């Protein structure tokens, strides 16, 4: 077995943004009252260094608790970390300090929409548009939420889904959806108990398209399943019949082998349910 070896460290540590971050960190160390923490925290957040970004934001908040932008920065980092309720609280603190804060109203609108609170989303996005009518991202978001609200009032109530009836986590940890991210059955809840089924189905279906592409280009054949692990647990994504996808998510107490067993049972339930839906 022969392996080719190569190494190029500059691609890892030679990126210009690293030196910017070093410079900002040094500036903050020499002058802890500096507002450079705003730029530093945002740069770290964009690089995905969320804990370092949160540290910079907290240091800034301690020095500048009355500065709306410092709460806004921390809220954006918390969203990226998945701490949505804390992010909501920080953005609320932001608008208390600055009632016209564009970023905070955008953030609050986004969170309300995620939590299914369309009225709240509309209220904050309208305030965001009032703060900056030229911000196209807000205008588009507002149009989308208005559309969703209109659809909701027109759409008939969805029938009760019972794809995974009798299985553990049938309504909060098992999800069946199509390759375009449309939920067919089951449900997915966040650790706060919010229904995140639609968001998760959309994200996972997008990721599965990437898995299709990777498998094809790398000549791996069709992919069968994916397991993803994180600090909060793990998730198992697999293909189901009729172009559907099955997601099983559990907290960290469930080992990956058991997750695979749960996924197999859920796949069988999904297969039977899909067959029953055939005309």
């Amino acid at each position, binding site marked *: 077995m022969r392996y080719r070896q190569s190494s190029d460290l500059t691609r*890892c540590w030679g990126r210009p943004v690293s030196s910017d971050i070093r410079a900002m960190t040094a500036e903050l160390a020499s002058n802890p009252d500096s507002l450079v923490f705003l730029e530093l925290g945002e740069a770290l957040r964009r690089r995905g260094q969320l804990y370092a970004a949160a540290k910079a934001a907290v240091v800034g908040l301690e020095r500048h608790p009355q500065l709306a932008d410092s709460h806004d920065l921390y809220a954006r980092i918390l969203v990226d970390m998945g701490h949505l309720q804390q992010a909501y609280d920080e953005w609320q603190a932001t608008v208390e300090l600055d009632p016209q804060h564009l970023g905070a109203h955008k953030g609050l609108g986004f969170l309300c929409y995620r939590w299914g609170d369309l009225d709240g989303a509309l209220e904050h996005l309208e305030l965001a548009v009032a703060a900056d009518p030229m911000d196209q991202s807000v205008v588009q978001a507002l149009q989308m939420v208005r559309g969703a609200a209109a659809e909701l009032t027109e759409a008939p109530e969805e029938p009760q889904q019972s794809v995974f009836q009798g299985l553990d986590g049938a309504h909060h940890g098992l999800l069946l959806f199509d390759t375009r991210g449309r939920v067919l059955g089951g449900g997915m*809840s966040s650790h706060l108990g919010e229904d995140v089924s639609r968001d998760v189905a959309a994200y996972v279906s997008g990721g599965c398209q990437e898995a299709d592409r990777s*498998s094809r280009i790398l000549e791996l054949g069709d992919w069968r399943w*994916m397991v*993803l692990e994180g600090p909060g647990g793990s998730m198992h994504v697999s293909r189901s019949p009729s172009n559907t996808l099955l*997601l099983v998510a559990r907290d960290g107490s469930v080992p990956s082998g058991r997750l695979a067993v749960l996924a197999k049972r859920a796949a069988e339930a999904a297969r039977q349910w899909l067959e029953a839906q055939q005309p």
Partner: protein
Amino acid sequence: MSEQFKQALDGITRVRGVRGALMVTDDDGLIIADAVMEGVRGDAVAALAASLSARMAKATVGAGVGEQHFLHLQAENGTLLSMPAPNGVLIVVLAENDVNVGLVRLEMLRAVEAVK
């Protein structure tokens, strides 16, 4: 430092069934260091694994799993694994579909330590 990386990748490629191990930048999938068998397209593995990991990141956060620690894609004819390391590095492994994932994972964790 490059010797340290080389040793870390060697540890992974010593596991039977591994076809290649790479350290790549997590944002754009560029190769930092690699040890791949002849015929394996390292640049494609690096780019696709980084892209897949990034696409699935929102899903793991949304589902309450949090920031991704490990990704395992099982396909008919192979296995793709990735594990984030500090400093924007992603450890990527391409292997046969019957590889001992537990062993590979241990070596990947050692590689993560080498990046620290």
